[in-house]
């Protein structure tokens, strides 16, 4: 079917002056651009020697946060493993010992919490899903520095490993953007939970 002539848009070719027709000024202009770029410092990082400064919302290796008593903050609600599109979080819940005064205010805790860091796609859905801000993505990305070097099994990060990443990042000040230097958001503060929400 031919195009309706009314729909055809006619575009004028730009007019060319003497300076453009001589071409040499255009080439000199182009050379100016290339020369300007040649004088600029390179933007490439020499990686192993120079490390990038990552933004705090970078999605790297996970960590499991501790609460103010040093216990694992996770309440083993399984929301993160449900939300996870890659099915890389494996949790086993255990009942908290009510007799222990240290655990009196808690019902559940994860006895086993394993993240397959190779299966994870680093989308951040787990930290979105977590009701108590227990799981977070840090700015760490170098697994060889985290002990995963020569075997796939080493990429299965268990609960203690993830807690140790929390300790390391909190100490070095490399906290993710949602919690700064250990201070967490309102939803996970114990006082707020008691006052505002039904148990």
């Amino acid at each position: 079917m031919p195009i309706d002539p009314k729909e055809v848009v006619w575009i004028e070719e730009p007019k060319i002056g003497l300076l453009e027709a001589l071409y040499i000024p255009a080439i000199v202009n182009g050379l100016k651009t290339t020369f300007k770029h040649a004088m600029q410092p390179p933007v490439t990082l020499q990686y192993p020697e120079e490390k990038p400064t990552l933004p705090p919302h970078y999605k790297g290796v996970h960590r499991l946060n501790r609460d103010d008593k040093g216990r694992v903050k996770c309440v083993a609600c399984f929301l993160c493993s449900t939300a996870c599109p890659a099915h890389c979080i494996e949790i086993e819940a255990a009942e908290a010992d009510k007799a222990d005064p240290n655990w009196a205010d808690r019902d559940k805790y994860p006895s086993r919490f394993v993240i397959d860091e190779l299966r994870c796609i680093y989308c951040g859905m787990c930290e979105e899903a977590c009701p108590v801000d227990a799981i977070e993505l840090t700015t760490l990305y170098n697994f060889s520095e985290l002990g995963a070097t020569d075997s796939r099994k080493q990429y299965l990060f268990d609960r203690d490993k993830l807690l140790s990443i929390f300790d390391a990042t909190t100490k070095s000040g490399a906290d993710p953007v949602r919690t700064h230097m250990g201070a967490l958001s309102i939803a996970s503060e114990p006082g707020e939970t008691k006052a505002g929400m039904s148990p």
Partner: protein
Amino acid sequence: MFLENLIARVLPADWVWLAPYGATAVIIGIVFGAVMTAVAYGILVERWVAAAIQNRHGPNRVGPLGLFQPIADGLKPLLKEEVIPARAEKWLFLLAPALAAMTTLAVFAVVPVGPADDLSGPIRFIVAPSIDVGILYIFALGSLAVYGVILAGWSSNSKYSFLGALRSSAQVVSYEIPLGLSVLGVVLVSGTLNLEEIQRQQEGTFLFGWNLFTQPLAFVLFMAAALAEAHRLPFDLAECEQELVAGYHAEYSGLKFAFFMLSEYVHMITVGFLTAILFLGGWHFPLLATHDSTYALAWVVKLGVLLAKVGFFVVLFMFLRWTIPRFRFDQLMGLAWRVMIPLGIANLLVVVVVKQFDLHPIWMTAGSLALFVGAGLFHAVTVQRRIASPRRVPPQLAGV
């Protein structure tokens, strides 16, 4: 001459007549080695320039600042597997890279690589001095180099190689004409084809003896045509990666590929030398390096001046590569046949008129510039007319 005397002193009395031959052999060795080193480091510099323009670092891992990269690059093709396609014409396939490398290297026999007439230096800076057909010899070998490309493309039995070779031969045949026309103006003014003599005649007052100032148009034509001859961007249609994989050397690997790479860079260095000698007075620089400068080690300064000019052009070619996008094939042919050849002939006419009536050389400059601006005006006016009367008339204008 220092080297010849040295060899004559070492040889027994009956063999003294061999001394000039020995000296020439040593000079060939030195020039060959220097060109090879220049090619190796030319590739490194090209990568550095490319990286700098793209805000990258470039090679910097092998040795300090990456300076040993050429050694690694040279050793790599030696260790690689040499693949000869099963359907290839074997002997021609093997002959092609050899032909390409030989013809481009043989050009350096007549190119003065330093102050050739300054005998105070340790060696003579030209392999074959006083060759009266110097430029002719260079063009003859330049045309022979096309055989390497055509044979490579045809004998590989691959469509990409074949297309690359076809494009390349058409391009080289077309651009040899403006190249010859632009040099012919210089040859007419100098009255010789001898490169040393052409260089000598440019030692005028201050800078203004240089052919660049008397024939700026010929200089522009020569630069463009020489870029096309050397298959450098924006004229590298013979090996454009996006369309033809690699062009005529797509099927080559290992050392045979290295030979093509080598011939390409030798060609670029040759073009740098030719531009410096034909248009920028070779090693001549006012006050610093003239025919009369007799201070000690004057030959070092002269050599430095010449190499600086050559280096400038080589780096300029590398910059142009990242500045101008590649031509379309019809644009390439149109540029040669519709722009450069008429301009070259007109420029030749200006030179002939100035020579015939013994006018001041400034008239050559004026005529050259007038031709250049005139061509620009002509182009602007014809394009304007084409815009004003397009072949397909918009219906609202045609009254349909």
